[in-house]
């Protein structure tokens, strides 16, 4: 055993040394990308990481980096697998001068990294996924579930349904079905939905779908029996087109189905064909090849042949723009950090964390970035690591997504108190003392 593993270890060590040996030039800001481009999650992974890389390329090509500091990155394939994700993170965290921040794009990997990023002092940003109660920055200083969390989204969806029904008081006595992927992901919004059901007096039915959800005959027959006024579709992957097809099969109107944002990409509706017409979902990013920023990127990056998407028809798709949002957050946090710690310098993970905690993407700033309307204004503070909670709603017209609402805000008080409660429970279980944000604000 000694010999063989010894040889193996030696070989890998060599390879590793070779890989890390190609040292990057000094003065570059390194971003590790824990990407996944194979397996069932590949459609999302290739789109989002494509957008992320495209935006960083865009900043490098257009402005020569952030105040002259170029961005560099390296991808590591995780296959959406927790232990591969941990290995990738450990491999890349010290690479090329150290990681600025990490965005794992997988809730499972996020969980596995929570302790590690705190120990290594590298901020972790999870946009629209991850651990919801980490939005309490006092307990989770290193984790940023930015823009919106699942709980905010659930609140946004109920608010949207309320406006469609003519006010929150009109929801009394209505029937809403929560059709969800039977996993941590699908269960996450249930406490919020239950709280709303009590508050607004609608009847909530929970119907789980076993993974992977490629068979939903039974669930939709149940829905046909219940005849709900609305169905919330909290699905993933093949579950979404299957649900839309099955809804068509039992004759349930798709206009009454509201999806979450992992059920709202082109990849979720195109496989269902005509059955998806009229289906509406929440999103925290607009999409479309005609958005000003997407057009710019397409001109600058793809014009120079440096685009990351192989299939050019996906430029401006929901996932691609979502990746661009990840890029904007990364770049802007580094920019804020540089303004505080010195322009034109390479920021450490700790400094980027400071930047994230002082990130204020106002309407005006987003306009400067050509991104107004593309993502919601976001203001992160020491306490509030979410920073926004807003979502828009979009409807599939058979060819593309059409935005049908403005930014809808969640019931911040309710969500916030739930987040604090859950975070405090975590702190107690784990023996963490929350920091006092009122003292840090002056810094």
């Amino acid at each position: 055993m000694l010999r063989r593993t010894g040889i193996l270890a030696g070989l890998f060590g060599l390879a590793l040394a070779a890989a890390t040996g190609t040292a990057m030039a000094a003065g570059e800001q390194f971003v590790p990308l824990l990407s996944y481009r194979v397996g069932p999650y590949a459609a999302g992974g290739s789109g989002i990481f494509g957008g992320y890389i495209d935006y960083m390329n865009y900043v490098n090509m257009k402005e020569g980096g952030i105040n002259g500091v170029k961005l560099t990155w390296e991808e590591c394939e995780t296959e959406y697998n927790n232990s591969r994700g941990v290995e990738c993170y450990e491999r890349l965290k010290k690479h090329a001068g150290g990681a600025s921040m990490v965005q794992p794009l997988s809730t499972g990997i996020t969980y596995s990294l929570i302790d590690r990023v705190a120990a290594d002092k590298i901020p972790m940003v999870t946009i629209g996924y991850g651990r919801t109660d980490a939005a309490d920055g006092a307990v989770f200083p290193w984790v940023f579930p930015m823009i919106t969390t699942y709980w905010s989204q659930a609140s946004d969806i109920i608010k949207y349904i309320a406006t469609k029904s003519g006010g929150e008081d009109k929801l009394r006595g209505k029937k809403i079905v929560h059709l969800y992927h039977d996993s941590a992901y699908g269960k996450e919004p249930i406490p919020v939905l239950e709280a709303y059901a009590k508050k607004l007096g609608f009847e909530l039915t929970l119907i789980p779908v076993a993974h992977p959800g490629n068979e939903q005959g039974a669930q939709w027959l149940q829905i046909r029996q219940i005849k709900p006024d609305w169905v919330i579709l909290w699905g993933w992957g093949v579950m979404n087109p299957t649900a839309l097809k099955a809804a068509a099969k039992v004759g349930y109107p798709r206009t009454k189905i509201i999806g979450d944002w992992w059920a709202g990409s082109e990849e979720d509706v195109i496989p269902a064909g005509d059955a998806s017409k009229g289906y509406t979902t929440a999103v925290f990013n607009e999409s479309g090849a005609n958005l000003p920023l997407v057009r710019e990127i397409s001109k600058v990056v793809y014009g120079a042949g440096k685009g990351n998407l192989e299939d050019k028809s996906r430029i401006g798709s929901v996932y691609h723009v979502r990746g661009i949002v990840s890029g904007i957050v990364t770049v802007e946090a580094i920019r804020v950090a540089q303004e505080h710690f010195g322009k034109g310098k390479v920021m450490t993970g700790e400094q980027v964390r400071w930047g994230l905690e002082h990130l204020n993407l106002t309407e005006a700033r987003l306009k400067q970035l050509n991104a107004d309307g593309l993502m919601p204004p976001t203001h992160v503070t020491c306490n509030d690591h979410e920073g926004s909670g807003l979502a828009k709603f979009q409807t599939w017209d058979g060819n593309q997504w059409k935005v049908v609402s403005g930014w809808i805000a969640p019931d911040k008080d309710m969500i916030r108190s739930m987040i604090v409660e859950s975070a405090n429970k975590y702190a107690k279980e784990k023996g963490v003392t929350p920091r006092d944000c009122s003292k840090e604000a002056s810094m």
Partner: protein
Amino acid sequence: MSFFFEVLVAGLLSGVMYALVALGFVLIFKASGVFNFAQGAMVFFAAATYAGLQQEHHLAAWIALPLALAAMVVLGLAIERVVLRPLVNQPQITLFMATIGLAFFIEGMSQMFWGSTPRGLSVGVEDQPFQWLSDRYNVNVSQFDVFAAVISGILVVLLALFFQRTRIGRALRAVADDHQAALSVGIPLQYIWAIVWAVAGFVALVAGLLWGARNGVGFSLTFTALKALPVLILGGFESIPGAIVGGLIIGASEKIAEVYLGPHVGGGIEGWFAYVIALAFLLVRPEGLFGERHIDRV
């Protein structure tokens, strides 16, 4: 009552879809004793090839279909030559693991050739209920599901004819019965295996098209294999009628359980319930409903 009937019919029709995937497993197991876990990946590859040819290269269906079939036959022949032939006489579990390695390979290959984004697929039949049935009896039966059932029926009849009435079919049954004896009467084993894998490729293509038209063509097609496994143990690994009957039983009981039992235990039980039914059957008949009974000799 009409609701129960509806659930039952929906279950039976889904069962046909499970049976379709299970058929591919049965064919290969019967002829070569290999539990081919790559069958799900083959379903994916077949459907992705067809949809890719049609949508990316804008070929008409009547050109894309033979091309996809040809791809499956070539794949089947290659598997026989590269994977199976060097592994002759190895324990079954080794062959099983080899097919999982094969599944990784085919999955990577499909996504490399045809991209990772799922595609829609239409076979010309809408997934809508028969209007007159829902109007008159308030029972929803999908046109597409019935169409799929008819296709599966035709497929089973074709396979039965092929097995019972042709020379190759007889040779196949001989090989299935006893490799050694078949070899000794001059049946070329490798040739037969190649044919079986090619036929399994054809079955995978049919299953892929029907499942793809139902849920879209994407990586998730590989998960259809998981739906087929309980069907296999219930029906027996070696029996074509077993796959059909097993599929019907699993499909129907799974749906009925989800609707009537699910709400009491929190739902989402479809993932494991099928396996429990199959297990219950196995405790009575350890070789599956139509499996061959083996007598142990010391």
